[in-house]
């Protein structure tokens, strides 16, 4: 018994070698810079010259910084557009394309749709910002269309009005995110045993019932990965805000990453920016740990 365990342990030990390149890279590129950033959080520094130790001053400032707290609340809202909505749309679309369009119109049409919905994912987000700026500005596409079809009361100042700015940025984010969810879900679907669907269909289950009772449970691992990665991404949303609203109007769309960028590169308060980034990192780690715990428990139950 003990010998067998010993053999297993040494068997496993051999695999550690394979972690060496990844570990070295990780230490150099992520760990050391993160530690450096953590230390910088206790200093006042302008990016050049010598940092000056200020202790907890940056964190004290942070606690009283309305901009920071506002940005955290916006992050919670962006979780909806970054995760919840794209996952739901992605699920329905994936099921539609896989389970309906492919049967009715064939594989080609279905992959054409998949490719089309995925395209926004590969667009550099700075470019997306320029294009969506044209669409959402007060004289842009949306309002022009509303006015042309006689619905001018619906025309809004989409990115310039505090009420609409956050939903508008969210719309662009949803546009970007749906493709990612769709592609991952569709590939997961190819693993589901088709006989499950046929049986359900023979039992008289409609399309929607099949989605809820077969597709969603079977796609649990994919849903899990997508939710985790998009939630993490929502904590560091930056580019869509940067290019569309620059955090405005009057900070209505400010997010933590924009705040750190602003202090890192504009005000050159590198120490303070580092402190905000530390808080952001800690929150992210917390979120990931909770999720992975949850995943472990699920797997243990299976």
């Amino acid at each position, binding site marked *: 018994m003990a010998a067998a365990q010993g053999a297993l342990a040494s068997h496993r030990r051999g695999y550690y070698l394979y972690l060496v390149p990844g570990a070295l890279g990780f230490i150099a590129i992520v760990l050391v810079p993160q530690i450096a950033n953590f230390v910088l959080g206790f200093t006042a520094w*302008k*990016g*050049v*010259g010598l940092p000056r130790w200020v202790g907890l001053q940056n964190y004290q400032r942070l606690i009283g910084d309305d901009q920071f707290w506002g940005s955290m609340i916006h992050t919670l809202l962006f979780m909806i557009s970054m995760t919840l909505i794209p996952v739901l749309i992605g699920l329905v679309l994936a099921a539609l394309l896989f389970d309906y369009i492919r049967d009715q119109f064939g594989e080609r049409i279905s992959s054409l749709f998949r490719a089309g919905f995925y395209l926004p994912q590969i667009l550099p987000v700075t470019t997306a910002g320029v294009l969506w*700026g044209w669409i*959402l*500005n*007060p*004289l842009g596409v949306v309002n022009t269309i509303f006015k042309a079809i006689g619905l001018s009361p619906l025309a809004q*100042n*989409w*990115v*310039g*009005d*505090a009420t609409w700015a956050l939903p508008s940025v969210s719309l662009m984010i949803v546009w970007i995110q749906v493709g990612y969810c769709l592609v991952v879900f569709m590939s997961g679907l190819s693993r589901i045993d088709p006989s499950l669907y046929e049986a359900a269909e023979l039992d008289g289950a409609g399309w929607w019932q099949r989605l809820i009772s077969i597709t969603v449970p079977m796609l649990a691992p994919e849903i899990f990965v997508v939710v985790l990665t998009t939630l993490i991404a929502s904590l560091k949303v930056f580019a869509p805000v940067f290019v569309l*609203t*620059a*955090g*405005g*109007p*009057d*900070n209505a769309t400010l997010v933590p990453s924009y705040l750190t960028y*602003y*202090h890192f*590169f*504009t*005000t*050159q*308060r590198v120490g303070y920016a580092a402190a905000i980034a530390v808080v952001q990192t800690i929150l992210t780690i917390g979120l990931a740990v909770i999720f992975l715990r949850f995943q472990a428990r699920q797997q243990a139950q299976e």
Partner: protein
Amino acid sequence: MTSFSKLALVAATSLMLMSGTALAQQKTFNIWWFEDPASSEGIAWGKALEEFKGKHPDVTVNFQQKTFQQLQASGSMILNSDQAPDVLEYNKGNATAGLVASQGLLTNLDDYVTKEGWDKILNEGDLVLSKYDDKGIYGSGHVWGISVYGEYVSCFYNIDMFDKAGLKPPTTLEEWVADMDAFKKQGITPLALGAIDTSGQHLLASLAYTKADDTWIQNYQGLKAPLDGAPYLFAAQTLVDWVGKGYISKESTGMKDSDAALLFTSGKAPMYVSGTWNLGNFASTIKDFKWGQFLIPTPKYSVGSTGNLWVVPKGAKNPDLAAEWITLTLSPKYQTELANDGGVAIAADPATITDPVGKNAAAVFKEISDKNGLGFYPDWPVPGYYDVLNQKDTGLFQGTLTPDQFVDQIKKVYDDAQANQ
């Protein structure tokens, strides 16, 4: 080993070799700027560069077109490395040129000022933004950079629309308001504005400068005292009033400068307040109507300044050549060239300028500069104030902030920076 990893190894090695080949034998001179190649500065300097190359056949002159973004995000990092060029265009102001000067990353140009005769071409006012003290505050200390062009904010107007409405460009604030009211009565929103961009805060500052005297400007730009909010309160009240009367659309909070400029260039809005950097674009794209510019009526100060600086990094190998380059761009030939390309020349003989746009711009700039009327930009005193003003501006335009709240909020940021400088 698989073919995959072999390929990768070869590629990696060749990369390292590539970076090694940059060490050329001949004397090289590296020069960077980030002005758009189509801008007046880009065109004029491009021509100067050809002449410079011709004068120095023994030197390999390498020019690189940079972007504003790159210098904004990593300018100080570049200057703090051995990758910096011999001479480059750098953003003026305390947070940029001042910071790198105070950190010892630039070459002191004091000696060249007299040696190259720059002091004879540029007046004291033109050199204010060249000097930074050891804390990086402009106005005194050594000379760290030289500006060879100017900028100012004015109101661009559509001459055809003014003529049709029987209006004249205003010389007082009251006349300006009357002009706007006349347009409004005809159902035209008179003033195009990008409130989330520079033009919003430049209009705000222009209005504030109608109530600004020498002391206020010096205190404000020098971060010398807590903010006296009175001029800003007047500006904020005026803007809210104008939005209420429909002189400025509430929609401007969703517009960038390029959107607002489009309203002007497409003939939809008769007026647009912005800087001289638009001149080149307007000259080339407006074909359907005549246009001009008038200064916003203020007692003395206009929003504007000398342009970005030529700076010489600390480790530059050819400071003499760099100085020669600066002298070349300041020479009458290239100052006239700049003006003829529609730019704001700082030292050109007006008689030699043929382009009407550039001629007018050079004259207006000289007029402001001669009365020491450059009030600089409102975001200069505090690093990051640009974003603060934009954010609070939009609050004001939207009606979520009252003028009093607006002034309180920008004062809080200003006073915080003033107390902790």
